[in-house]
């Protein structure tokens, strides 16, 4: 549905988006991750046709955004970053306007409006003017606007920003449900959101795509991914590590924590980890040595760690090590 090829956007001398390509098909939810100013919003603005790209191509549902913007825009629902809406209109008036400009009329229009009012929990405020609403309601009003025409493509810039935890959950569930039939792009700073909602995630840093894959694939890039943690009681860390280091499957071990006779040792796999191989070996050793085991678990890897490693530029890292020294 969405096809982006070699998208470039420069503002003055600054390259905000640098050669970004991706496709999103129906049934996919693509999560955009990245630090502030990484080019997420700029990319989304080009996908939705708000700003023209310096170079590259965007097509939505087969319509080129430059050659046939109206055709492409018909298929898109868009929630901009600040969730803008007309402050002097009522919620109902605003949704009516959104529906009409999307070409809905008559019974179809009222049905569509009723549907989004229910989906976005706006029943209590429909006759209130937008500028009297709280931030969460304003956000949901703009969200409602973006789905009123049941678009095939949904682009959302930080859809859960400024919502309370319950609302966040509702919106996430809504996105996940809609993702079954639509092509969705959304950006976020919240990593668990990516894990909870996306079928695919892209990390963007300084205008470039630096990682692209399913949340599980991204997590596997974490240094910790595949490592086995072992917590035992009543024995020294050095003994445990000595035994584990001797195992064929293990490349190295580290001591994570050692307190009041309780040690936490982490064993890293050799080569690419196979399913359960290392944890099996660790568990076998523990049983043979009759250690008093508290816990054994395999790390899935953590997205925040991957994010941190990938998006921290070399200069930042050297800055950091300087500070440490």
């Amino acid at each position, binding site marked *: 549905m969405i096809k982006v090829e070699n998208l470039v956007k420069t503002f003055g001398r600054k390259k905000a988006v640098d050669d970004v390509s991706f496709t999103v098909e129906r049934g996919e939810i693509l999560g955009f991750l990245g630090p502030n100013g990484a080019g997420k919003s700029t990319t989304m*603005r080009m996908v*939705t*046709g*708000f*700003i*023209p790209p310096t170079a590259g191509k965007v097509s939505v549902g087969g319509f080129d955004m430059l050659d046939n*913007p*109206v*055709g492409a*825009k*018909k298929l*898109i629902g*868009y929630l*901009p970053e*600040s969730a*803008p*809406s*007309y*402050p*002097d*209109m*009522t919620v109902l*008036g605003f949704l009516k*306007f959104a529906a*009409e*400009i*999307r*070409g809905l009329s008559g019974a179809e229009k009222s049905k569509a409006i009723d549907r989004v009012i229910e989906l976005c929990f706006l029943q209590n405020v429909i006759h209130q*003017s937008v500028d009297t609403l709280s931030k969460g309601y304003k956000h949901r009003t*703009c969200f409602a*606007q973006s789905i009123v025409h049941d678009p095939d493509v949904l682009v959302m810039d930080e859809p859960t920003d400024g919502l309370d935890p319950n609302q966040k959950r509702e919106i996430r569930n809504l996105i996940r449900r809609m993702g079954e039939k639509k092509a969705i792009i959304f950006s976020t700073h919240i990593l668990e959101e990516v894990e909870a909602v996306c079928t695919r995630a892209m990390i963007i840093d300084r205008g470039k795509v630096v990682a692209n894959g399913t949340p599980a694939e991204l997590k596997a890039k974490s240094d910790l991914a595949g490592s086995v943690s072992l917590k035992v009681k009543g024995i020294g860390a050095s003994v445990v590590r000595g035994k584990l280091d001797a195992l064929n499957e293990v490349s190295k071990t580290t001591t994570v924590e050692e307190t009041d006779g309780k040690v936490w040792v982490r064993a890293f796999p050799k080569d690419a980890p196979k399913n359960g191989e290392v944890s099996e070996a660790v568990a076998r050793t523990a049983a043979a040595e009759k250690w008093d085991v508290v816990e054994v678990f395999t790390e899935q890897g953590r997205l925040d760690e991957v994010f941190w490693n990938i998006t921290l530029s070399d200069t930042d890292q050297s800055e950091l090590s300087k500070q440490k020294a």
Partner: protein
Amino acid sequence: MGNITTIAKRELSAYFASPVAYVFIVIFLLLTGFFTFMVGGFFERNEASLTAFFLWHPWLYLFLVPAVGMRLWSEERRQGTLELLMTMPITPWQAIVGKFVASWVFLGIALVLTFPIVMTVNYLGDPDNGIIVGGYVGSFMMAGAYLAITCLTSAITRNQVIAFIISVVVCLVLILAGWPPVTNFMTQMFPDTPSLVGFVASFSVMTHFEDFQRGVIDSRHLIFFLSVMGFSLFSTAVVLKSIRS
């Protein structure tokens, strides 16, 4: 066409959703009344015409029209709704025309509400109503020209006050270029080149509004006002395009 209507409807309802519309209409009617009867000497003229009424329109519009139009695009930019509007399945031109038409219709409503003065003059005497219709048409066209200029200035800035001030200045220039004291002064300055004075004056709304007040609806004057509107709205499109890239 449907999109233009939808945009215009929203814009027009936005005027009436806030006190702006009512405040504007009341002030407009009060001022037209004041200028017609107190300053224009409606009764002292002792003639059945609306000369005293139309005479002040270029000056009244100088402040009132920019006040109506200053928020058209600047507010859209400030609120971020420009992003919403420009990602809707409409062309920028439809949005520009829709918003302009809404404000113009609003000014038209205010103008129509001055109808009691037409009734008054018809009650008191026997005026030439053709001349009055001409005056109204000219006044409406002039309001449209001012409004299109305000449209352009409000697209240039996010700040309504700046949009207002620039519009007033531009409109003032368009008035002064044909205002008798200025044209007389220019004739004294450049006595050898009357064509220059005529050229400058031809850019003035005063020159073009005059004939309307005499009941003459001349295509040249219509073309002048329409081309000011066309040029300003086209420039608005250019400005909007440039701020988006």
